[in-house]
């Protein structure tokens, strides 16, 4: 029974194995980035960035049809442009990054929807917006795995400057550290992961696998290492659960995966040991508050 429910779909169907593989790649690449987004209070930035990718993917689609590479390149260009522009505007003017990003992504989203709807059918729009995790071909899988690898390696290389840039940007700048480099490389990582994610989950759902596991992790640990490990685990398990749900109940897989991640977030919110609702309600001994974290 357990076997049939949990393993059989993957044993029987290649597309399920591919979908799982793709989702694991996205989880490993995107969730750590999501942890940093959350710690920098930039969760909504991910959202905005995902919308910003749309017109690029749409132009790629216009030029070459439903082509993986054209849409990837288009998405990257659009995403990077918006990320750089808003990061630049925030650094030079009095606008906060969120505000300038909001302006740019709204322009970008409108342009994207306009482009897609002039040429494509609604089905194509649905493809870009909601992804096709059950139809990942070899090229797509290679792309997703490459993006995950690059992302993990880049994050490892960038780790210390990025942590300092998050914790005390003014200080990093005052000692001549690579504050701007850390900031923009990180934004680039967000874009790259979202572009990878949109092939499987769509532009709108790709943010979900980035942010929800990170938000859930917050209730299970304090240190950055713990947060990253928990976030990746939550993302992988959500992918597995979502794919199985969509298989057994004939649900669209992208939203199913994100909803399972959402469920994981709600459960963490209630039962998580670090500031979860249940723990907050329980009386605690004073000393526990003073323990150092690991």
């Amino acid at each position, binding site marked *: 029974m357990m076997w049939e429910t949990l393993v059989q779909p993957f044993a029987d169907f290649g597309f399920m194995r591919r979908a799982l593989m793709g989702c694991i790649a996205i989880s490993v690449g995107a969730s750590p980035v999501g942890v940093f987004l959350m710690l920098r209070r930039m969760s909504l930035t991910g959202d905005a960035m995902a919308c910003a990718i749309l017109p690029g993917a749409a132009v790629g689609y216009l030029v070459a049809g439903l082509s993986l590479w054209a849409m990837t390149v288009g998405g990257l260009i659009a995403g990077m442009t918006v990320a750089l522009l808003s990061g630049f505007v925030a650094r030079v003017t009095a606008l906060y990054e969120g505000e300038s990003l909001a302006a740019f992504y709204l322009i970008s989203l409108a342009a994207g929807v306009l482009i897609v709807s002039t040429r494509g059918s609604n089905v194509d729009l649905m493809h870009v917006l909601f992804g096709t995790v059950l139809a990942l071909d070899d090229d797509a899988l290679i792309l997703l795995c490459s993006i995950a690898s690059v992302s993990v390696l880049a994050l490892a290389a960038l780790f210390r400057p990025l*942590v*300092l840039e*998050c*914790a005390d940007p003014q*200080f990093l700048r005052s*000692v*001549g550290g690579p504050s701007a480099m850390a900031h923009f490389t990180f934004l680039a990582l967000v874009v790259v992961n979202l572009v990878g994610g949109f092939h499987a989950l769509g532009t709108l759902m790709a943010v979900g696998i980035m942010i929800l596991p990170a938000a859930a992790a917050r209730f299970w640990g304090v240190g950055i290492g713990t947060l990253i490990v928990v976030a990746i685990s939550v993302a992988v398990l959500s992918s597995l659960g979502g794919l199985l749900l969509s298989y057994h109940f004939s649900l669209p897989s992208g939203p199913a995966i994100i909803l399972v991640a959402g469920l994981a977030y709600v459960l963490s919110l209630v039962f998580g040991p670090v500031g979860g609702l249940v723990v907050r309600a329980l009386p605690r001994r004073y000393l526990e508050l003073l323990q150092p974290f690991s």
Partner: protein
Amino acid sequence: MTFALEFQDLTLGYDRHPAVHRLCGTITEGSLTAIVGPNGAGKSTMLKGVVGTLRPLAGQIAFGGLAQDDIAYLPQQSDVDRSFPIAVADLVAMGLWREVGGFGALRAAHRARVAEAISAVGLEGFGKRPIGSLSGGQMQRALFARLLLQDARLVLLDEPFTSVDTRTMADLIVVVQRWHGEGRTVLAVLHDFDTVRAHFPRTLMLARELVAHGPTPQVLTAENQFRARQMCEACAGPPHTCGRDAA
């Protein structure tokens, strides 16, 4: 006597409105100077100019053999994200950035120095706590520990004792005295004249323009304070030229 800093007719400001106007004077190397003046007198602005985050509108600052690397700066309101999950020891270890950079390993010798800095500011046993668990005074101690590790020849402190209790202040003044003893140049923006009189041999009084600069007892006179207040209220005083009275 060599100078650490020389203000040469320095004007600093925001959006073309000067906050520090035509400041002249030298800070000798190894001196311990308090910067005093009414609110809005341009004290913090002056430090920002020295650090280089604010470019002069006119005039310049000459560094007597100091590189930008030799300056450590504690801003009035530090940008530290107190909710960010790093430990006190990690925050303090940031002071080693110039030595280890973004990729260098923190060796045992580095860790020993971090531990030493932490105990020098009286935070023994706090190393592994998250920075979010520190009180305001403890946070200021941690930031001082970080300054200690920066090992800078010029230390700039912007109102370092404003939100701390007297005991913390006493401990941190010991750290400042230690820097002074080691021959480092220290500039500190302060409000409490008693602290200045007790611990700072030299004082620079600012009210957008220079009011007085010299040995503390000669600067902190009732007359100078009255003048400073008047100059700040009047805002646009008579045009001040780089004069000899600025000594």
